[in-house]
């Protein structure tokens, strides 16, 4: 049974979540527990391989997990996946993977059309979202004609256009230039959705988020609402690299 008071409003709730990719393999994520309140923006930080992407993909039912995950009060289970995914805007770590149509505008509009929005309205809203992300003039292009950063923006548009209540973004600023990052930050603040964002971009995380969950080897090692934990995490990470570079003291 999940711990804590289930009546407490939450957009996302990870309750003792563990993930193994192989039955006899190590845990990629180990008993992770935390909540994201409605409208709260949380950065998920950690080194490569610490389990950030695994946690995001578990939240949309792409990987099997132990424990419980709730999205907008819905438990993530086989029979609720469609309803859960309707609530979520998801950005994959490789944006190419989620560009499913050979026309940028149609791809973004698809996120609305599958939610029942009429085609003309969907395309109008998609055009607005593309413009807000600085790629409005690419609406008639095919994705393969775009640069990596442009594809990232189109994939983001597809995730944001339906104004979902929960946003799960994997490295959303990875291929963006400073202007793109600022545009995205403004959009995320304006959306009002709950946000869980896996990122290595600490400056972007501080710009957008007000709470920081740090993973290490699949476990939560810090969960703080101020930026000092981020600063300590950053300093500790850099210090570890310098120590390794210097080698053992002679």
């Amino acid at each position: 049974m999940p711990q804590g008071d289930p009546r407490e409003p939450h957009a996302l709730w990870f309750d003792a979540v563990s993930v193994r990719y192989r039955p006899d393999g190590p845990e990629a994520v180990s008993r992770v527990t935390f909540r994201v309140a409605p409208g709260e923006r949380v950065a998920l930080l950690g080194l490569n391989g610490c389990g950030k992407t695994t946690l995001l993909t578990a939240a949309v039912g792409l990987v099997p997990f132990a424990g419980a995950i709730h999205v907008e009060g819905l438990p993530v289970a086989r029979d609720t996946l469609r309803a859960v995914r309707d609530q979520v805007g998801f950005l994959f770590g490789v944006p190419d993977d989620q560009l499913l149509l050979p026309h940028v505008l149609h791809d973004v509009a698809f996120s609305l059309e599958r939610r029942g929005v009429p085609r003309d309205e969907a395309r109008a809203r998609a055009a607005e979202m593309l413009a807000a992300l600085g790629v409005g003039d690419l609406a008639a292009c095919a994705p393969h004609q775009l640069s990596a950063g442009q594809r990232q923006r189109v994939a983001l548009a597809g995730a944001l256009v339906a104004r979902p209540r929960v946003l799960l973004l994997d490295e959303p600023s990875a291929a963006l230039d400073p202007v793109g990052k600022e545009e995205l930050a403004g959009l995320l603040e304006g959306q009002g959705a709950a946000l869980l964002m896996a990122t290595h971009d600490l400056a972007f995380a501080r710009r957008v988020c007000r709470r920081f969950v740090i993973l290490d080897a699949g476990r939560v090692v810090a969960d703080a609402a101020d930026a000092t934990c981020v600063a300590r995490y950053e300093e500790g990470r850099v210090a570890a690299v310098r120590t390794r570079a210097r080698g053992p003291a002679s």
Partner: protein
Amino acid sequence: MVAFIEAWGGGNGAARRLSPHIRLLCGALFFSGATLTPPRPAALSFGIAAIAGWAACCGLPRRRLRGALALAASLFLPLAALAWAAARLNGDTAAWRVPAVIVLRSTLGIVAAAATMAALDLAELHDALAALPLPRAVRALLLQVAQQTALLTDETRRLGDALRIRGLVSARLATRVRGLCALPTVWLVRLALRAERVGAAMEVRGFDGGGGGRRAAATRADRAAVSLALLVLGVAGWLRWRGM
């Protein structure tokens, strides 16, 4: 060599005035007609004229026509040469007919496909497929084949660039052989992993081939084009059936 991405659009013939789904439908009908053409003089003339007419309507660029013919030659000439040699050795020239039929029909089919692709931008494919009465699964499959091939072509090009930058092309022979032998494994693994990730994305985004364009009201040109394409198919079938 024309890459898959480059084979779409660029045709500026009369077929451009048709709705996207009509261009696709007519292309499919001409392609089907090409596969029925028997290798007899009257039928052959009709088949070549029909496909040439469709290619002209689509405004198939000459470079792409040469590319299509080159593709057909590379695929089918070895077969034809082998069959011809075998037929000569056995003194049975009639045995060469079947391979000749395959070569002929396949070449006409490839030209028909190239012409249709030239008349249709890749970006129009979604609307074109959505407006045809196809099962969702078929629509999803066709769209993803086109979309992922386009993206993979791009990725393969980047892989090739990486090979050049990393010096594989100018390395010693043994190193080149080792690198090239490893390449299919690398590429196929990337392909398989990508397919898995795209499948996951389709799940999360709820993509099942649905959505897309409403079928616009058929214009007079659309109706005429479909009628003509059906006529060509009918004549090809009749010629085949009558053994002409």
